[in-house]
């Protein structure tokens, strides 16, 4: 089997030195993806021909000294909810069977513009609803560290592909933790940029006010390069920030002395948290302190309402966002329906999986006449309070440090029968989406041979700060250098 691919930075050095070619990297990535697919199930589709063509083009450009960026010629993978012209965009759902997107997401345009090569689409929970990548019409993705366990979700395919060394960089979407939690479970770095930083045009909406596209890679440095390549205002997304692309990469360098990092007491030492996770996170905080960071206890007092608020808002938005999957214009339509109502009912009943249906029903209820004020409007009010919690914390801190998840990767099948428990495992990640702030998850240790994730949260508008801290931590530690042992 092809050897795992190194980090983006290492591959770029090899490309620059002429030690390898993009064509070779793409061949290695495709071969490794194929070889691991039966055990890992990370991909739902490869685009070998297109990737080879683009790699050859990237090599030709490099030969003419026209390499355009840090990602030039690098093989990457995209979650199955990001539109690529001429490719399926299935969201791991039966309802989108047969659908091929006629247009590119802004993300895809920007990746192409900088010469990155997309090798395929990765598995996910259907419509990004889930934390385990088990709710997929393609079957589950497995955790490279333990094939009996979940890689987390919903961007579990992207996380597994990076953790298994198939690609050095993949993209996912994060609505309530769907990049950070799988990054934590698979021992890699996952960045949820601040809301509006990366265009959502071409990302199939789950909950529009929470969704963000972000990178998953082995290092904070690679994530910074990726963010700098894909961020910047997009006139096709009204919620996109009117700002130029970020320049987070130049902010990295290891020097974080003088930064103040808050430790929110509601996130640390709670009873729900695995003690080994808590210990690893505390050690990580002390490591940053050694790097010159000032630690300060702080409070996010409304945290206990975050999960409830999140599930009211995301299901409400989802119930409306998923109305377009009606079997009328594209995707799968139930055969032989007697009339319009039956066509809708059967196309949607047969097309959506259980978890998606559960959330559509919840969201429909939340928005119904007579319940709107008690649920949706109330949730918006609490959301404002949560946002204010962060603003107040950031008045005296540059970043906040928390665990990414209360526990390490759970076994496949362990949570599918208990949706509430599955929802509660999002406790440390959902507030970040509700507040719209940036956050990164990075590996900070192991428990029973499985990775532990550390979350660093930045203030709105400063995506660079959590990346700077993560980078500094990675320069001082080697958790990110550990790789799962995958039998050949």
């Amino acid at each position, binding site marked *: 089997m092809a050897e795992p691919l190194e980090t983006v930075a290492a591959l770029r050095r090899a490309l620059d030195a002429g030690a390898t070619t993009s064509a070779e990297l793409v061949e290695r990535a495709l071969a490794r993806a194929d070889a691991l697919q039966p055990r890992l199930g990370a991909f739902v589709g490869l685009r070998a021909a297109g990737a080879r063509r683009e790699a050859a083009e990237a090599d030709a450009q490099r030969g003419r000294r026209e390499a355009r960026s840090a990602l030039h010629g690098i093989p990457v993978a995209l979650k199955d909810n990001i539109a690529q012209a001429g490719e399926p965009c299935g969201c791991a759902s039966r309802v989108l069977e047969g659908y091929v997107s006629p247009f590119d997401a802004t993300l895809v345009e920007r990746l192409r513009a900088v010469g990155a090569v997309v090798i395929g689409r990765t598995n996910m929970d259907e419509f990004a609803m889930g934390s385990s990548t088990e709710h997929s019409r393609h079957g589950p993705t497995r955790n490279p560290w333990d094939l009996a366990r979940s890689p987390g979700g919903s961007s579990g395919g992207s996380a597994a592909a990076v953790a298994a060394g198939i690609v050095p960089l993949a993209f996912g979407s994060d609505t309530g933790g769907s990049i950070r939690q799988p990054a934590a479970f698979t021992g890699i770095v996952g960045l949820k940029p601040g809301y509006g930083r990366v265009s959502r045009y071409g990302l199939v909406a789950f909950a529009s006010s929470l969704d963000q596209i972000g990178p998953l890679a082995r290092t904070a440095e690679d994530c910074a390069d990726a963010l700098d390549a894909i961020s910047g205002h997009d006139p096709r997304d009204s919620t996109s920030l009117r700002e130029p692309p970020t320049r987070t990469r130049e902010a990295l360098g290891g020097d974080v002395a003088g930064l103040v990092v808050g430790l929110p007491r509601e996130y640390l030492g709670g009873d729900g948290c695995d003690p080994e996770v808590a210990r690893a996170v505390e050690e990580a905080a002390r490591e940053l302190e050694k790097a010159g960071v000032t630690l300060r206890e702080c409070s996010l007092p409304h945290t206990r309402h975050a999960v409830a608020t999140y599930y009211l808002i995301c299901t409400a938005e989802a119930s409306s966002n998923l*109305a377009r999957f009606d079997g009328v*214009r594209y995707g799968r339509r139930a055969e032989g329906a007697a009339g319009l109502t039956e066509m809708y009912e059967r196309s949607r009943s047969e097309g959506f999986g259980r978890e998606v249906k559960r959330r559509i029903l919840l969201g429909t209820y939340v928005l119904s006449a007579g319940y709107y004020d008690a649920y949706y409007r109330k949730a918006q009010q609490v959301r404002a309070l949560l946002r204010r919690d962060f603003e107040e914390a950031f008045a005296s801190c540059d970043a906040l440090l928390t665990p990414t998840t209360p526990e390490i990767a759970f076994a496949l099948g362990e949570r599918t029968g208990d949706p509430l428990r599955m929802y509660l495992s999002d406790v440390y990640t959902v507030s970040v989406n509700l507040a719209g702030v940036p956050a990164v998850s990075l590996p900070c240790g192991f428990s029973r041979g499985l990775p532990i994730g550390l979350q660093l949260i930045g203030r709105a508008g400063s995506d660079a700060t959590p990346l700077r801290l993560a980078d500094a931590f990675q320069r001082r530690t080697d958790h990110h250098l550990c790789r799962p042992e995958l039998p050949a």
Partner: protein
Amino acid sequence: MSGYEAVIGLEVHVHLATRTKLFCACEVGYGDAPNRNTCPVCLALPGALPVLNEGAVERALRMALATHCKVQPRSLFARKNYFYPDLPKGYQISQYEEPLATGGWLEIQADGEAEARRIGITRIHMEEDAGKSIHEGSGRDGTRVDLNRAGVPLIEIVSEPDLRSAAEAGAYLRALHAILRYVGASDADLEKGHFRCDANVSIRRPGAPLGTRTELKNLNSFRAVESAVRAEIARQTALLEGGGRIQQATLRFDLDSERISVMRLKENADDYRYFPDPDLLPLVLDEAHVERVRAALPELPEARRARFAQEYGLSAYDARLLTSSRGLADFFEAAARAHGAPKTIANWLLRDVLAALRERSLEIEASALRPEALAALVRLVDEGRVTPASARALVPELLERGGDPAALVRERGLEAVSDAGALDPLIDAVLAEQPAAVATFRGGDEKALHFLIGQVMRKTKGKADAKRVRELLLARLG
């Protein structure tokens, strides 16, 4: 109507005159091949997002200001959720809790009413249109969907229940229609469905609380609204007088048969699960921008009517007709300026030009007639170089093909005949042919003189200068 008073409120949906749709760059086109003007956004493909068309906001704003509404500094787009094949997203983007503008009014004057009345406007909000479902045959062939119209920008203008008769409803719609076109908010072409009306109707004893109302849907012409409202008032009156009860319902009106039928009763009211659209930011309009739009508004029909009456000495009726469309009012003013006698121009326009336009279903600005040409034509009449009859006969040609009236008169040999040398032989002939009329006139009947003048005119095909003919005739008969 036997002691009942009607209470009527109107909701008018108006297509805004933009080149592109409300949330995407697709062209707005009528009569194009089905589904030609579509893109990922208006087809609701997975991942597509809406972006607000600022030109549509600008046009909506003009209408809001022209109807004295208060423009909200911040308004919100919401999603109205329901399933229908011509609604691609499964929701319509519309303003709901926080509309663009509220609390305006406009003045109407129904035919035969002495006083103008002020009708309140509750709100004006922006929204997107749906596509069209085309049901063919018995439904066996299925339903076809054309999404060219999906996403076309609309404003909905909701009146207060201030209207009291079908005639007032008609007057309100005509006033609204004129303002829409004056400010360039909409082409308001009724035949293209640019202007669609729903009417809420109830009746009550004067001073009593409001009665149960019914809603008449999809009334697409002024006449349809007037007839439907009249029929519904009569239906409700007959029902109450017969001891019946009005049921809250949505009604359909058939213009040909003038029949009202029930679409659905209100008991099964829909729940549209409105909520703010998270894909769109709140629409924030700063005061300076609103004031710039206000300052750029053209003079509105009401003000222009008053000015025409005062400045040009026109009757209220003539002033109203001349200001009924901005094109006509602009034409009048340009022609009056070029000619110098506004009342004369007004008479020509209202008497001759409008009739010829109506015969051709033409708007004056779409015709080939230029204001300067009308002024020149009337001047030829003033100078006696062409008779009014000849001038009138040239109007259709000027409307259709344009041109210089003086040159046309020469080309057609329409110069007025006034010299005695040319007229005397014709007069001789008429006097010889009409001895009876000559005798009648000599017997003291003046009417016979008009007959004789007419006979001379006939021989010149209307080119004779009537005044000159009269002089010559009198000289011969006197």
